[in-house]
């Protein structure tokens, strides 16, 4: 077996049982690996109604076929379990080194079951798998825990994913941090770790990854690496995802003061260079879009971390702050605490708006005045959230649950879909992103479709050009027409990328001569595994994964009304900038989307013929039993 290691490791924390089973071939054939494989295992093994924080939930940590090889951006890994945030399918992926080193331990996936009585961590050291005591690590931040695990095993070449105090205290949106500050950040995977009393998973291994066609692989990789070395891409590599900044400014996309209005926020961009120390690459990546950053001066001088990209900087405006030093310091702090910065900063913004509107007052905040853009407000609230003290105990449940508890109209200020908040791009300025948020299987998510809206049509994928031609102005972020079909296509592609476990960013159409990402993925996949999947088969695999995830969610009670956006984004016109006057016409995009998915327009349930076409006959039977299958 090429590319794959051929073994799944299963660890039961209740009874300490450790088992190893061969990786089933049909699992690879139908779901590739990574996210796809995880979703299939979750569908098969997690009964509907399972408590996400109970012993019956399972954590699946998977690599894909390309991890550990030279495929550009093949550093990703996916952690999946039923989400404590959404009560639906939960997964989150991250870059760094951990994904490659799972493979070098000799496994494709690690499944963690049960619940430990005392804190433990899992050490996977080649063939030696140990559940080790972690009472001494409990209470440590993510970096402290990583350092301690490396020290007690006397090896800096041990790669760790760890929860911080957030996960230990069962803050619902807790995450897992690897390396300095790379996060499997969303859907509360850290809270599931915390509920099982597992602090960390550490891997070290000497197994090699063999590939089917090394020469062909090198040929394809060379093309992409050369593209990354080109001067045109220097900026992209230097600024990473922050290079998209100009579009945010141009279209006024930043969600400002809890999605109340737009602003350009140019100043932070100008200061950014002064914070970057050194370009930093994930494992095997030629782009190196990541950076070590440090706050150079002022009260937060010396706060350091990695990342500081567009989707982190944008949480400043969301909290009403244009202070890059505060944003950078919070970035480092939230990574140390191991809590998702999207949800955390939305909560700070939400609480501040509730305070502003008189929904909560000083009695609720331990006499603290909540102000927009105030470092004191942010620090005090974050501290309370992590400790679950005072109002923090309410906020630690995530913005949807917090708004329900607070009541008095707070629900309308909760910026979330399916119980999870958005990235910092306001959907009224980017309609396709709005649709992506509304339909994503893991709750609001900007990287499930990751539509390149606002980029020129010729930079979009070659395989999508025929779709673009059907519509008037489909790449314009302010139009709704065509977004249903485009979101569907891109969701399928992302599902494949997440399953091969390559970075969304490292393999982009403008880097490839053919400009077809599915084509490139097909070549990489064949060279690594020897398995030939045509472009159509590749995208169909993506579609299969999306449909299976939909079925998982429907089994948990999801209905069409869960594919929604908050009222604010649907009814209140955007106040200023190029998107002035815009609202999201979600309904017409949704109908369009369901049509291309072949899901029923009225119920949002998949049709029998679609599931059977995808080979999901048994899933169709399951849904039929629940009266949730469309004909």
């Amino acid at each position, binding site marked *: 077996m090429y590319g794959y290691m051929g073994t799944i490791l299963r660890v039961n924390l209740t009874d300490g049982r450790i088992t190893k089973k061969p990786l089933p071939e049909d699992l690879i054939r139908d779901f590739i690996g990574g996210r796809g494989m995880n979703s299939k295992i979750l569908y098969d093994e997690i009964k509907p109604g399972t408590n996400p924080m109970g012993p019956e939930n399972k954590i699946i940590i998977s690599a894909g076929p390309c991890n550990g090889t*030279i495929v550009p951006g093949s550093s990703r890994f996916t952690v999946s379990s039923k989400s404590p945030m959404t009560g639906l399918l939960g997964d989150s992926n991250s870059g760094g080194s951990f994904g490659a080193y799972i493979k070098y331990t000799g496994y494709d996936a690690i499944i963690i079951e049960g619940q430990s009585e005392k804190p433990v961590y899992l050490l996977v050291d080649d063939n030696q798998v140990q559940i080790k005591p972690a009472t001494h690590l409990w209470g440590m931040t993510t970096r402290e825990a990583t350092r301690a695990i490396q020290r007690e095993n006397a090896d800096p070449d041990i790669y760790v994913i760890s929860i911080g105090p957030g996960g230990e205290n069962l803050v619902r949106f807790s995450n897992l941090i690897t390396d300095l500050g790379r996060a499997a950040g969303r859907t509360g995977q850290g809270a599931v770790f915390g509920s099982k009393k597992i602090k960390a998973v550490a891997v070290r291994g000497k197994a090699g990854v063999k590939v089917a066609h090394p020469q062909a692989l090198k040929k394809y990789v060379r093309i992409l690496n050369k593209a990354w070395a080109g001067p045109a891409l220097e900026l992209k590599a230097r600024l990473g995802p922050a290079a998209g900044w100009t579009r945010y400014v141009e279209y006024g996309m930043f969600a400002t003061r809890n999605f109340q209005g737009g602003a350009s926020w140019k100043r932070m961009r100008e200061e950014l260079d002064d914070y970057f120390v050194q370009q930093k690459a994930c494992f095997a990546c030629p782009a190196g879009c990541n950076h070590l950053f440090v706050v150079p001066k002022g009260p937060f001088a010396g706060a350091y971390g990695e990342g500081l990209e567009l989707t982190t900087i944008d949480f400043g405006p969301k909290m009403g702050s244009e202070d890059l030093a505060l944003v950078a310091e919070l970035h480092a702090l939230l990574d140390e605490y191991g809590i998702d910065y999207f949800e955390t900063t939305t909560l700070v913004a939400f609480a501040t708006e509730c305070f502003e509107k008189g929904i909560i007052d000083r009695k609720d905040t331990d006499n603290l005045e909540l102000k927009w853009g105030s470092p004191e407000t942010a620090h005090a609230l974050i501290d309370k959230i992590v400790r679950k003290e005072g109002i923090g105990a309410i906020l630690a449940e995530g913005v949807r649950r917090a708004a329900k508890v607070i009541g008095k109209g707070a629900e309308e200020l909760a910026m979330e879909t399916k119980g999870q908040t958005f990235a910092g791009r306001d959907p009224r300025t980017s309609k396709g992103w709005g649709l992506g948020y509304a339909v994503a299987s893991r709750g609001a998510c900007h990287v499930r479709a990751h539509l390149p809206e606002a980029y020129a049509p010729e930079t979009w994928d070659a395989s999508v050009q025929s779709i673009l031609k059907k519509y008037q102005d489909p790449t314009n972020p302010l139009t709704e027409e065509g977004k249903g079909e485009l979101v569907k296509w891109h969701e399928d592609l992302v599902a494949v990328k997440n399953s091969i476990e390559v970075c969304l960013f490292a393999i982009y159409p403008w880097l490839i001569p053919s400009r077809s990402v599915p084509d490139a993925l097909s070549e990489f996949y064949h060279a690594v595994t020897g398995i030939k999947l045509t472009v159509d088969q590749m995208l169909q695999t993506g579609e299969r994964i999306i449909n299976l995830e939909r079925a998982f969610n429907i089994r948990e009670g999801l209905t069409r009304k869960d594919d929604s956006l908050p009222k604010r984004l649907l009814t209140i016109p955007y106040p200023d900038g190029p998107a002035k006057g815009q609202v999201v016409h979600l309904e017409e995009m949704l109908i369009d989307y369901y049509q291309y998915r072949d899901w029923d327009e009225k119920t949002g349930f998949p049709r029998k013929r679609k599931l059977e076409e995808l080979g999901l006959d048994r899933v169709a039977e399951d849904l039929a039993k629940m009266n949730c299958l469309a004909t």
Partner: protein
Amino acid sequence: MPKTVTDKCLIFHGDQCTGCKICELTCSMTKFNEYNPGKSYIRVLKNWELDVNIVTLDLKCDFCNRCVSWCPTMAIEFVDMAEAALLRKNNRIGTFPAPRIKSDSAAADRNEH
């Protein structure tokens, strides 16, 4: 200038290295027909927190140059020893946080438990 040594020397441009380990992957594939950083002759020592990468070279390296040709940031090159000596004279090494390495004695302790 007479050449007294036929060996080459790996020159490392530390500020260009992004720590991606493509050199390690290339070496292990070239020499052992698998992607396995643990077997590579070229190794990147890291201070992972402060993003310092230092390259070291196993004595078994035969200067095949594959790692150099695959480095995406041109952070490494092989030169003659004489050229390396001159380069050494004309460059400072700079100031940086030290990488951490594996501890042999502690590893031995661990194995006893």
